[in-house]
């Protein structure tokens, strides 16, 4: 498996640039690939991720749409059944709730329900929002709903390298793929090869080795887990950090093996915890452990709706500090609680400003 530090490329690219490049290259390679969604063709180009594509490929392949998420999803599915490869873009994941019927009753099921007579090679790009008052309806990470349904694949890359490789793989995949992005990852950079490549689904990535606890970070929470790992190192706790990258298929092997070694597993999701991706990971690991389970924990959004005011919003999300504190309590249950006094906000997060 390739890794983000692939020595074949020293070029650094942002997450935005990586998404943009993956789409452009696949559109060059396959005339059936097209981009569809509200405002994919405008000067802002979905925060830059579709910028330039309209000029290069024209309105037939980079298509603005009416506000009709449900129909446009169905239309994309129909086009996919006819052999095309639509990439349907949603500026917020929350809007997927408008097209659940098409995604779950049709896209997920068509190949099976029609006995293999059709395929639905559809990519659904969706961005999770955070901060600057995104609030109740612009902040949801709904990936667990899609993990739940056989027939869908779900990926949530956390760095530019995986963003390009996973998006390329998603476009080439013959199944519907829910592609989960996070707004605050957009400016992050990583070395990204120029030539097209794919990142295989179903392989987790150990992004930092450790011996005392396994931290699994989903979507943006991977960044917080990595920072928590540094904080924990200061008190002598060695955390292994795993990025599942792909949530369905999910690489339980890698996570279970790590948790088996460290004896502690803390999953931090960029979503609510109840019946979430963290529940799945914890349950799957414990199920395999047959009576010898690691100490397990889950963190995620507070069990509330997301408030807009920053003073409440900051407690809605886990962060490096709260993750480190929880990990400490798991690893050293006898000790008195500890919490690092680090800045809870990462620099690129603090730099993020509205209006949107």
């Amino acid at each position, binding site marked *: 498996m390739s890794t983000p530090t692939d020595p074949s490329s020293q070029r650094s690219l942002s997450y935005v640039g990586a998404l943009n490049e993956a789409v452009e290259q696949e559109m060059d390679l396959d005339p059936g690939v097209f981009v569809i969604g509200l405002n994919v063709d405008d000067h802002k180009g979905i925060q830059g991720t579709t910028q330039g594509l309209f000029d290069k490929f024209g309105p037939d392949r980079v298509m603005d749409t009416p506000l009709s998420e*449900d*129909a*446009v999803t169905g239309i994309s599915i*129909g086009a996919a059944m006819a052999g095309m490869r639509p990439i349907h873009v949603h500026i917020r994941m929350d809007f997927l709730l408008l097209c659940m019927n098409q995604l779950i009753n049709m896209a997920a099921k068509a190949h099976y*329900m029609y006995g293999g007579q059709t395929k639905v090679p559809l990519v659904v790009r969706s961005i999770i929002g955070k901060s600057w008052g995104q609030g109740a309806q612009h902040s949801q990470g709904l990936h667990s709903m899609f993990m739940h349904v056989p027939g869908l694949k779900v990926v949530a890359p956390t760095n530019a390298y995986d963003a390009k490789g996973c998006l390329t793989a998603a476009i080439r995949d013959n*199944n519907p793929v829910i592609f989960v992005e996070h707004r605050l990852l957009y400016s992050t950079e990583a070395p990204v090869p120029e030539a097209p490549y794919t990142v295989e689904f179903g392989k987790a990535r150990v992004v930092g080795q450790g011996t005392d606890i396994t931290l699994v970070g989903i979507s943006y929470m991977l960044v917080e887990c990595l920072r928590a790992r540094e904080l924990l190192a200061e008190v002598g706790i060695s955390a292994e950090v795993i990025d599942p990258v792909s949530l369905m298929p999910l690489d339980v092997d890698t996570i279970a093996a790590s948790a088996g070694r460290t004896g502690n597993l803390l999953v931090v999701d960029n979503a609510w915890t109840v019946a979430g991706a963290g529940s799945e990971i914890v349950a799957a690991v414990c199920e395999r452990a047959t009576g010898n389970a690691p100490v397990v924990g889950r963190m995620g959004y507070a069990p509330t709706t997301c408030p807009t005011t920053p003073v409440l919003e900051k407690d809605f999300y886990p962060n490096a500090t709260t993750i480190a504190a929880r990990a400490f309590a798991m690893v050293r249950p006898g000790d008195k609680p500890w919490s690092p006094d680090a800045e809870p906000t990462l620099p690129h997060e603090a730099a993020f400003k509205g209006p949107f």
Partner: protein
Amino acid sequence: MSGNTPDPETLARVYRSLRLIRRTEEEIARLYPSDKIKSPVHLSIGQESVSVGVCDALNDDDMMSATYRGHAAYLAKGGDLNQMMAELYGKGTGGAGGKAGSMHLVDMKAGVLGMSAVVGTTIPIAAGYAFAMKREGRPSGEGRITAGFFGDGATEEGVFSETLNFAALHKLPILFVCENNGFAIHSPLSNRWATEALCERVRTYGIPTHEIDDADVFTIRRTAVDAIQAIRAGEGPQFMECKTYRWREHVGPGEDYDDDYRTRDELAPWQENDAMATTGEMLDAAERDAIDKDVEQRIAEAIAFAEQSPWPEPEELFSHVYAD
């Protein structure tokens, strides 16, 4: 009907199709109490003229999508009868290997795009297939088209309006066909429609519409032929609203005139005007008998095929979850 009087070949073809559908569904109804067909069957009996009239105007390589009430459209488009019957029996030789049942019939080779049990769901799917067809780059007049069938109830779903707007905006090669049988299960239009101005509404999207009140198969066919010609020429979608009547209960093999939501009086004029009977009468008796015999034989063969086919292997449960 005069302007629509068919040539003898068309007449025979249309009659055969009407007959095949009617008799197939009657046989399904006859077999149903045996519990061999463990599938909710939504019979089209009485509504066949819409499917037959429209599908006779389609080319083999055109596509068609329909609903859970899809036996008629499936057969009219040339869907494989053996595979359909085996599918209803839940056999491994069914079109979907027993995974679809009556409600999700599919036959991509025959241009049957697959049906859905969630009302309205296939409307945008059909438009999406048409979206792809538009990009095939065929010369004007020779493009492929998709016909999308749906009931009156489906027009109440938001996705119907969304799809009309998108299809008209992008001039997609699609023929929308509403089979208005006046009911959604037992719910009459008066419980569901603020007005009956469906065609008028569709026209506001710039989509030409055709309202056919008597379900006459040749009127439907002629209307479809003309509409399809314009669609193939790149003029964008057209819309047909065909009034029709469901003779049997909403789901299941029986009649339901003793339930309190409709009366047999309502049925009478439709039965008098039955397309299968009227077209049959237009044929020479010997020709009709030959067709009838052939139809019976095909149905008998299909039933035998279904009966004798093996069940799917247990491991088939796990196939086709993901495509390679």
